[in-house]
């Protein structure tokens, strides 16, 4: 199966290890992974802030970058959800809308791709640790991917998953929200970090670079000993026996 990886802007620049793990994981399950060089960002920063003219340009770029792909997989729920918005964003341009629909039909968030397309629930990973998982809002509410991450994590050998209290609450990232409404965002991430610490886990697992950057950044500032990992890194983790 040929799969094009949409690494996303944050993944490319800040979380290359999550990308590497994604590639290895997909290859482990028989996928041939390519990386269309023309990809940039999904356009969400401009879209969510109301700059739709600017967002439209980026959307078209993304559509073109993945035109030849049969599957597009991205290790980010929020960016995967953005690809589903292109159709609305490009209203008034029916030819582009048709292309947008093709892209959204072949695009998947990583865990969604594993469970729904590859029909894999056990990635053969092993990891002896106590962890908790942050459900990102866009993945859960906009993309409707609710169970796949948990299903995959539950199959990781040795991994003890602890439920995160108030997991339905946003971490306060919200893209430009974190900068525009910095004081509110800080209170939200503080509340999230305190819930995470309450679990007593050693590792926080996330599936969205934005949330990881926000929660991880706040934890680092507070000298938290907790480690933040992308779900791809966990699902690709094997321990020597």
């Amino acid at each position, binding site marked *: 199966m040929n799969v094009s990886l949409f690494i996303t802007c944050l993944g490319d620049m800040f979380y290359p290890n999550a990308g590497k793990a994604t590639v290895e994981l997909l290859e482990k399950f028989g996928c041939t992974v390519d990386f269309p060089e023309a990809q940039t960002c999904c356009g969400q920063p401009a879209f969510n802030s109301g700059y*739709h003219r600017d967002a439209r340009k980026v959307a078209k770029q993304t559509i073109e970058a993945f035109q030849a792909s049969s599957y597009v997989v991205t290790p980010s729920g929020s960016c995967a959800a953005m690809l589903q918005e292109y159709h609305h964003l490009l209203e008034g341009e029916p030819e582009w809308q048709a292309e947008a629909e093709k892209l959204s039909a072949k695009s998947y968030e990583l865990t969604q791709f594993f469970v729904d397309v590859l029909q894999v629930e056990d990635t053969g990973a092993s990891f002896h640790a106590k962890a908790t998982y942050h459900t990102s809002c866009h993945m859960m509410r906009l993309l409707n991917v609710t169970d796949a991450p948990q299903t995959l994590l539950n199959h990781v050998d040795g991994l003890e998953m602890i439920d995160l209290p108030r997991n339905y609450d946003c971490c306060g990232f919200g893209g430009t929200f974190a*900068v525009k409404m910095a004081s509110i965002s800080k209170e939200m991430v503080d509340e999230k970090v305190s819930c995470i610490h309450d679990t007593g886990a050693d590792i926080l697992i996330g599936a969205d670079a934005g949330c990881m950057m926000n929660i991880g950044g706040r934890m680092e500032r507070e000298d938290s000993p907790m480690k933040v990992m992308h779900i791809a890194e966990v699902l690709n983790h094997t321990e020597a026996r």
Partner: protein
Amino acid sequence: MPLRVGEKDFEQRVNTGLEDAFMRGTVRSAQEKLRTRKQASSEELGDWEAWRTLGEDIRSHTLEHLDYYLEQLSDKVAERGGHVYFAKTAEEGNAYVQQVAREKEAKKIVKSKSMVTEEMSLNDALEDDGLEVVETDLGEYILQVDDHDPPSHIVAPSLHKNRTQIKDVFADKKGYEESDHADDITRFVRDELRGDFLDADIGITGCNFAVAESGTVSLVTNEGNADLATALPKTQISVMSMERIVPTWEELDVMVSLLCRSAVGQKLTSYITALTGPKGEDEIDGPEEFHLVIVDNGRSDILGTQFQSALHCIRCAACVNVCPVYRHVGGHAYGSIYNGPIGAVLTPLLDGYEDNKDLPYASSLCAACTEACPVKIPLHEHLIAHRQIITEKENLGPMPEKWAMKMFGTGASKPKLYRLGSKQAHRVMRPWTKGSSISNGPGPLKAWTNARDMPAPANERFRDWFANRRRSEPDE
């Protein structure tokens, strides 16, 4: 109280909220309680999603045929001997109520809870005419006694006050001397209000839903105050905003089920009152005269726009109760009688963008509001649509942001430029980088690094790794 409340600007209001630990504690525990209760009561109903779809269908059908149902409602009210007045503006609505009060030579008016009359500043208008107006909903009464403190929640207007603060209000203003227990305070308020109910010349109510087929006004309360306000005074005036209507009793059943569960997590509230016209010849109580004031006040301008579904709102505040932004800043930060996510959507529609341009940005777009809405208003999408109008039509976005987005749009749509830029990122950021993170970023990053570290851009981007890997595996 007008739609917009307070003098302070948005940032000041937010900071006041964030600094109010009491209020935040109260809001947090209220949200928690309401969320749990709503979940339990909606699960009991079976397929909640199917109910939401039904609610949405009923609301959108009604709004699509609003002219028809309003005419039917008006005819039915008139058939039953009531008077109907269509008010284009708040001023027209107030003037009509003032006129009725003058004709009745009224001195005292009791009111049950009504958001639209708040929006119209009806109390101010009546008080200017020398009338005594008494709010009889407990939450509204507390605010009225507390020198017209603005409401902070659509359903529970005094949510920002805890019982000790409420006790203090009554001790201060009304000479209350008992404990801060809810029972004691409530008993005191009942005694205070009983006389007002008996003396009042006019009872004014809002309207949760008007039933078009019968000309009925339905009211949903937990205190029974609306029943007294409509049973005792000789004249009843109900004020409704034009969209608060259902075609028949069958739809009323669905909407009330959704409302009670979404608002307070109850199957039904203690009192669901349905009033049709003035007292009939064979009836023993009820008003001798009944007026229904149907208020537009900017709503027909929303019909037919992309925001039409905002008029589906049944004022349950489910969106408010799940909103993390609301939890931290409280209702007063919105500077509007409509707060939380629905307030951030409705206020700019009813009051314009100029003074409310920050409200649509008071959301992380987490969509908890959209998920909670019993009539499926896509609240977070409306917030994005507002943002687009603010930046691209009204041109109210900050200049640096506008330029940054333009650069982003250009940079991210030209792959070569983008690749070059992201390759340079780690070098550009080096002066601010310590180890693998940035803790004191320049320019707009400062707002980020004030509270958190930021990872430094990777030396080797993912795409570099991928390209190198391909090169070192030429067979693949």
